[in-house]
Structures are given as structure tokens and as C-alpha cells.
């Protein structure tokens, strides 16, 4: 389609579709009055049934834990997919970033920035672990904590230590961590199936609501998710970093 026609067709159709959608949404309960039986029940009983004070976490990792397993594998598939799409091509060669300090797009960080960045890595990692470990109690959990942890690794880069990061980044270990997280989730599910006859059913003591060690399998699942998400996001970001800093078209001029 010519772009003029295309735009016109789209605008007319989109206007119609938008009106149609608004008409459908008018049938929803008035904003702020929703009271579905499912959610009412969970708000009333989840804390007693699962000993998790964060009902969202109880749903994410227990009542609807199977959805979250699928979600973890969406991330898993995306990380594998990005690795496949960005894998080193035949006509590219790796260049060590040290050879071309000037051409690097990361601004050469001053020592102060560098020190500040590195100093923040510790607290960020602690915060990430905290968010993962308290997912069943307060807002947070494996996913959010995992991303925070991955950001910690990123700070090392931002403080200009990408080369260090590359040196200390044992790729296979991170791959293995990601797989262990994703596979661990499935393994917990199979354990439930073997012990109780239902996939992902809780097999641990529930404990007292509000305690750190409570909520049954939600905590180990959170740990598995945290591991997978942290490793997955480190892999994702480093795939892009790799593209930016290291790979060069073969024969490409030196900047």
C-alpha cells in the first residue's frame, strides 16, 4: 500500500475499532467498584491458606504458579532467542575493547564516578537479595529482585569496568544459573506432582504469616525466579553490550 492510502485506511479503521472498544468497556463494572468472587476470596483467605502476607505473591507463585512458570520460560526463550539472533556471524570478528579505548561509546568514567559506581554495587546486590527474599511478605519477589541484581552487574559496566566485567563474567556459569533457575521451577513442580499428586503443589511447612521463613514453596520458587531473572537480564544486557563494544564487521575501519 502507498503510505498515504495506508495511513488513511489505518486511521479510519482505528477510529472504528477504538469506538468499538470503548463500547465494550462501557459494560465493565463502574471504575472502583469491581468485586469479583475470585479476588474477594483470595483477599480474605490467602493469608490463612498460604501464610503469605503478600496476596499478589501468593497468587503469582502458588494459586497461579503455573502461569508464572510459563512466564519464566518466556524470558528463558527470549534470552536464548537474543543469543541466537546476535550470535557472532561469520563475517565479524571479536575485538578486544581495550584496543580501542577512544572508540568506545561508553564515556570514559572519571575515577570519582567509577568509585561511586563500584561502591553502589554492594548495596544494590543486598537490596536485590532482600527484594527476592521478602516477596511473600511485601511488594517484590523474584522478578523485581532479579532485575535489581542484574542492574548491579550493570553498574560495574557503567563505572567503566566493562572489561573487568567481561573478564569476571563466566558466561557458562551465568547460562547455567539461568537454566538452573528455570529448570528449578519445573523441578519444584515435579516434586509436588510426585509427593502430592498435583503439579506445583506446596510440599513445605507453611509457617507463621509474616515470618521470613513462611509461605511454603513460595520462597524457594522466588529464589529460582530471582536466579533466572538476574542471570537472564545480565545475559540480555551483555548480548547488547557485546554488540556495541566488541563485535566489528570484518575489515571495518578503525574509528
Amino acid at each position, binding site marked *: 500500500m502507498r503510505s498515504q492510502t*495506508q495511513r488513511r485506511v489505518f486511521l479510519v479503521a482505528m477510529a472504528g475499532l477504538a469506538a468499538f472498544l470503548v463500547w465494550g468497556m462501557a459494560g465493565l463494572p463502574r471504575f472502583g467498584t469491581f468485586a469479583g468472587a475470585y479476588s474477594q476470596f483470595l483477599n480474605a483467605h490467602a493469608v490463612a491458606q498460604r501464610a503469605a502476607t503478600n496476596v499478589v505473591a501468593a497468587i503469582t507463585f502458588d494459586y497461579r*504458579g503455573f502461569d508464572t512458570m510459563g512466564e519464566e520460560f518466556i524470558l528463558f526463550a527470549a534470552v*536464548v532467542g537474543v543469543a541466537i539472533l546476535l550470535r557472532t556471524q561469520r563475517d565479524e570478528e571479536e575485538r578486544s575493547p581495550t584496543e580501542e579505548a577512544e572508540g568506545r561509546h561508553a564515556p570514559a568514567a572519571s575515577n570519582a564516578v567509577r568509585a561511586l559506581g563500584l561502591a553502589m554495587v554492594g548495596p544494590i546486590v543486598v537490596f536485590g537479595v532482600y527484594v527476592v527474599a521478602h516477596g511473600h511478605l511485601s511488594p517484590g519477589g523474584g522478578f523485581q529482585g532479579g532485575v535489581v541484581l542484574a542492574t548491579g552487574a550493570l553498574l560495574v559496566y557503567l563505572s567503566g569496568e566493562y572489561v573487568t566485567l567481561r573478564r569476571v563474567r563466566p558466561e557458562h556459569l551465568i547460562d547455567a544459573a539461568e537454566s538452573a533457575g528455570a529448570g528449578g521451577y519445573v523441578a519444584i513442580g515435579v516434586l509436588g506432582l510426585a509427593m502430592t499428586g*498435583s*503439579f506445583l*503443589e506446596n510440599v513445605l511447612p507453611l509457617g507463621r504469616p509474616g515470618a521470613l521463613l513462611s509461605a511454603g514453596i513460595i520462597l524457594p520458587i522466588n529464589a529460582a525466579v530471582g536466579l533466572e531473572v538476574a542471570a537472564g537480564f545480565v545475559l540480555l544486557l551483555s548480548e547488547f553490550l557485546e554488540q556495541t563494544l566488541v563485535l566489528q564487521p570484518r575489515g571495518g575501519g578503525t574509528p
Partner: protein
Amino acid sequence: MPLLPPLPVALPLLVAALLVAAGPFVRRRVADLTAIATAGATTVLTALLLARAADHPLVHWFSGWTPRGGLVLGIDFAVDVAGAALATLCGVLMTAALVFTWRYFEAVGTLFHALMLVFLAAVLGFCLTGDLFNLFVFFELLSVAAYALAGYRAEDPGTLQGTLNFAVTNSVGGILVLSGVALLYGRSGSLNLAEIGRTLERGPADGLVVVAFVLLLAGFFVKAAVVPFHFWLADAYAVAPAPVCILLAGVVSELGLYAAVRVYWTVFAGVLAPHAAGLRGVLLGAAALTALLGALMCYLQQHLARLLAFATVSHVGLTLAGIALLQPDGLAGALLYLVADGLVKAALFVCVGVVQFRFDTVDERALHGRGRGLPVTFGLLLLGGLALAGLPPFGTFLGKALMEDAAGRAGHPWVAWLFVVASAVSAAAVLRAGLHVFAGWGPPAGAWRPGPGGPDGSAAPAPGGSASSRPHATMVAPAAALLLVALALGLAPGLSARAHAAAVRFSDQRAYAAAVLDGATGPAGASAERAGPAVQPSGTLPPAALTVALAVALAAVPARRPHTRGRRRKAALHGVLHATLALRRLHSGQVGDSIAWLVAGTAGLGALLTAVLR
């Protein structure tokens, strides 16, 4: 509670994680064998499910949350014959694709195998789940895996364009589905298919119900590639590596239709029942459009993968026609046809993969006569083409016969003609391509046809061997095996009766809800009553013969150069050329165009259904 249902999903996921973890330490052949063994074992599990689900659905509640006090708290797998049969088909096709991969790729890490297994798990979860949001999760999982797989040959020109079109269009489809899920949740407060169905049935078919239905339908139609949601499909097929094409053609569009039917019969059938006649009309129209446009575009292609892609579109239309009758007879035929047609198309893609592996191109003109040294592939391609036309006793014949029969009795006898025309034209294209490539029929490199703008298909070097490599037995055998299964489907005694029983079950919303929510295990009263004697499709032999004859005749026609004498004929030919060129231009492969059509299609579907459902 049955222990079996979660296993076909858990097993491939676990092995996929292991494969990635062990990546650097695993040799190529070990990865191949592990993946094939896993896919095979998973297929056995799904076959077991199929056998066990014969009497009543198997319901597995995850995390131990069986419904409490009539309230669903968790997620369930509700396995019935239709879902298990489709799952088994997917398992078989995945095994075949992995066997084909054995020699197809020269260098391939474990990542490819891991992604294939994740894709398999997603597909099976999609077939087995009884939860609407879980269906969306698996929809996205299979999409993400499919995007990465389709873009696998990232170094080839065109791959990125095709993959991008595929990914963006299907992601927008995903947004539509999720919006539909959100609306249904807002109305019913539930995510379980059976429970939502019960809630909706108590209320009116108001705007929200219609909009949610249209959103879900449009989202699934994007996957199924119903016109005008099909613009991504040919581009994705053209660039995906052959093993992935086997799955795209045999699995993905099938699943789109399956999801649409599943959601209709578990959620909407009750509330929309008073408007079934209007809905039938709209769906039949979409089916006819899809079948005819797909067949025409198929006939115009010279790129073999694109040709099969449009054959897929056409056959999606035919299946939709069976579904659109909205009663068990048509549904039984559609289910059978879905499975048999998936097998045949996968076999054809195996043949195309062999050609690509051998000659580095899948362009019909460039390949003219070069396939003489591949008699087995030639034979399989011809057989596949005939099976595509519905040659008895292939399973495709049985499925089509059941659908034609049902359409006739439902007062739509023209559907039989739609079947004849669409399947004859699409099969003729396959046969013609086979005759050109393998037997050197017709003018070499005939340039009279309206060629596409670019170097259609000339690029795309085989990822594995060089031009001199001979196809290995592991590349041809899957095609033979798949065709054999399609043949066995048509010969299996009592299959149409079973398909009919499965369809009756499938389309009984109350019995489904009772089995899922109340744990009812016996055959539902209503189902047993309506399961009359199975249809005997012997009366439909003449149309089948007509289709096959027409396909063969059409395949032979373009072998002669068209006569261009006489001004009127020239003008007519000119007009045809212009029309086909315009049609080709519509399939521009532009992401923007795909999305514009998607929006227009959704809005159109919305307008039509609003008109008939209000």
C-alpha cells in the same frame, strides 16, 4: 486426580533448561539425540492422554487447588480428545522436524534444540489448558519461541524483514487476546474457561461480550492467518529454516483455529446461541474469502515456501468453513482435517527443505528441471500434492467429506464447491511446482508470468551443505512417515465415528463445565443423546474425484505458454495480470501494512458481528 496431564509440558521444559546449562559440554549428536528422544517421549505421553481421555475429560488442577465451594482458585488442564489429538499431532511433527534437523544444519548449538523443546511445551500447554489466562501465557511462550526460531538464519537477507513482520503482527494479536481476557475477567471475575462460560450464560449478550469475543477471535485469527490477518504468514514461512516451517505450517495456524473454537465452545456458545445463524454467516464469509484468496495467491507463487504458505492460508479457510457451521458434524470434519492437513503440509515442507538443502534455492524458475536426480522427493511431493487435494483414502479426504456433508445438511451446499475450487487450485500449484522442478516440465525459466519485484527466493543459501551435498535419508524419511500417518488416518476404522463423538463432547458447553467444575466423569446425558450414528462419507467421492482431476489439469495448464494472439485475449490477459499484480502488491511484506490490515480486519469483524449479534 490424573497425574499425566502436566508431564508433556514439564518434560520438554526441563530438558530444554538442561540443554542450555550443559551447552558447551554437549556434542552436536548428543543434543540431537536428546531432543529427538524428548520429543518422542513427549509424543508418547500425549498419545497416552489421547487414549485416556476417550471416555471423559482428564482434569488436573495445578498447585492442588481443586475448586472450593463452586469457586475456581487455580489453573486446570482439561484434556479432552480434541485437545489431546492436536497435542499428539504437535508431538509427531516436532519429532519429525528434529529428525529432519539431524542433517539439515551443519553447525548448530544446543540453543536451537532448547528453543524447539520450549516451543513444543508451549504448544502442548496451549492444547491442554482449561484456563483463559494460561492460554494467553502459552500463546505468548509459543510466539516468542517461534520468533527466535523463524529468525534463526539471521545472516540471510530478508530473514529479518520476515521475522519482524511475524513478530510485530503476532504481538499485536497477543495484545488483542489479552484485552479480551481482561474484559471477560471484568465481567465474570474469573479466568477459568468453564466458569466464565457459566457466568456469561446467565447474562445478556451485550457490548462487552461482543467486544471480548471479537478481540479473542481476531487475536487467534492472526495466529491462524485468516484473511485479512494473514499478511505476516508468507514472509515468515519464506525466511524460516525448513524445520521451523514444518512446525509453522503444521502447528501454528492449526492452534490459532483450535483456540478460537475452544474459546467459542467453552465460553461464548451459550450466551451467543440465539445469534448463531448470523455468526455462522460471518464466519462462513471469512472462510470463503480466506480459502479463495489463499488458493489464488498460492497459484501465483514461484517461491516454494511462499507457495506452501498460501496453501496453508487456503486450507485454514477450508477448516474454518467446517468450524463456522457451529455444530458437531462440521466440527468433527474440521478436527480430522486439521490433523490430516497438518501432517500433509509438514511432509510437503520437508520436501521443500530437501530441495533447499540440495540446491540452495527454492525458486521454481531457478530450479526448473534440476530436481531430476531426486526421484524419491519428487514422488513424495506429488503424493503430498494429491493428498492436499483430498485424494481418497488420505485423512484429508475423510475430513473434507465430513465437512461437505455437514455443510450440505446445514443448508450451505455451496461450501462443497468452495472445497473443490480452493483445494484443487492450491494442490495444482504444488503439483505444477513439482513437475517443473523435478521433471522439467514446461518452458524453462518462463518469464511471462508477473514476476515479483525482487529476487524472489534466489537468495537463502542452505545453512548446512553446499550445492553438491546429497540429501540424507533422515531428511526424506520424515516426509514419507508423515504422509503414511496421514494415510493411516484415512484408513483407520471407525475414525469418523470417534471424531464425531469427540466433536459432540467438545461442543457441549454444559458437559465441559460439569466435568471441570463439578468433577462429573460420566458421559454427559446431552452428549450421549446427540451422538447419533456417524456420517458415512461415501456420497462425497464424486467431488473428491472432481477436485483431484481439476488439480491435475490445472497443474498441467501453465506448462504451455499462453496464447497471446488476438487483441481481446491480450486485453483480457492484461487485465488478469494487472489484477494479480495488484494482489501481489497488497502482500507487500510491510509491517505497517500488516498492522493496518489487522486493525481494519478487527474493526470489520467487530462491525459485522455487532450487526448480527445485536
